């Protein structure tokens, strides 16, 4: 071991923490533990929310499309009926 390594051993010798460390650790150990949700669980929960919101929006869009098609069909039938009635009125008038 050369002079620098000896100096490093001196410089990095063990130190005691501040007075009362044992009591602070004991007090912390007695406190009830609050379990924080790990990052992975947060990500999984966020992904689930995104999927649910996305699925909800998709379903709403699908329902809108169906309603739109039904309205278009109703209008087409109504138009056809009106044309038919109009043709009948015109035929009877002649």
């Amino acid at each position: 071991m050369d002079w620098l390594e000896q100096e490093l051993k001196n410089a990095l010798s063990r130190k005691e923490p501040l007075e009362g460390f044992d009591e602070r650790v004991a007090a912390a150990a007695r406190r009830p533990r609050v379990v924080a949700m790990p990052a992975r669980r947060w990500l999984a929960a966020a992904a689930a929310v995104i999927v649910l919101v996305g699925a909800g929006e998709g379903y709403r869009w699908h329902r809108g499309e169906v309603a739109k098609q039904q309205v278009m069909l109703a209008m087409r039938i109504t138009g056809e009926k009106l044309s038919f009635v109009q043709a009948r009125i015109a035929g009877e008038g002649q």
Partner: protein
Amino acid sequence: MTGAGSAVQHAWDFAGLVREHRSMVFSVAYHFLHDPDQAEEVAQDVFLSLHRNLGSVESPAHAVHWLRKVAVQRSIDAARRRQRRPQVALEDVAEPSTRPAPGDALLSELLRKLIATLPEGPRMAMVLRYQEDLDPAEIAEVMGIPLGTVKSHIQRSLALLREKLARRGVGER
């Protein structure tokens, strides 16, 4: 050991383990982080983790190994969390007004500051080598890195420190 709760019945009860190993755990964090408040936080966290896992402690030697390994990991985690905050940069290590001589407290402080400027891996390897007196194979096991990497970390760090000390006029006795 017969079960999870039986550790408290042994000589290596929790309070005894804290008393016996607090300087080791605190010093690993302190020399790595160069911040006494953060080192205290890390040391407390390590012992709280031990408290939760006391049932898995098989022997006093196992407790030392466990504490050292967790202290290393928690210190590295703490350093990564504070990466956005300012740390000790080489330019912050002021030139000493008087030239420190080998063996004096001024040189020890200068060395601690220079070590704080080393990158994460080499810094922890140096702390474990010179604070804990571990050999490179033991350091590799504790840090979970290859033996060759540990040897290279120590050799390069020593060379860098010699160079920095030489620039400050500190050399061989």
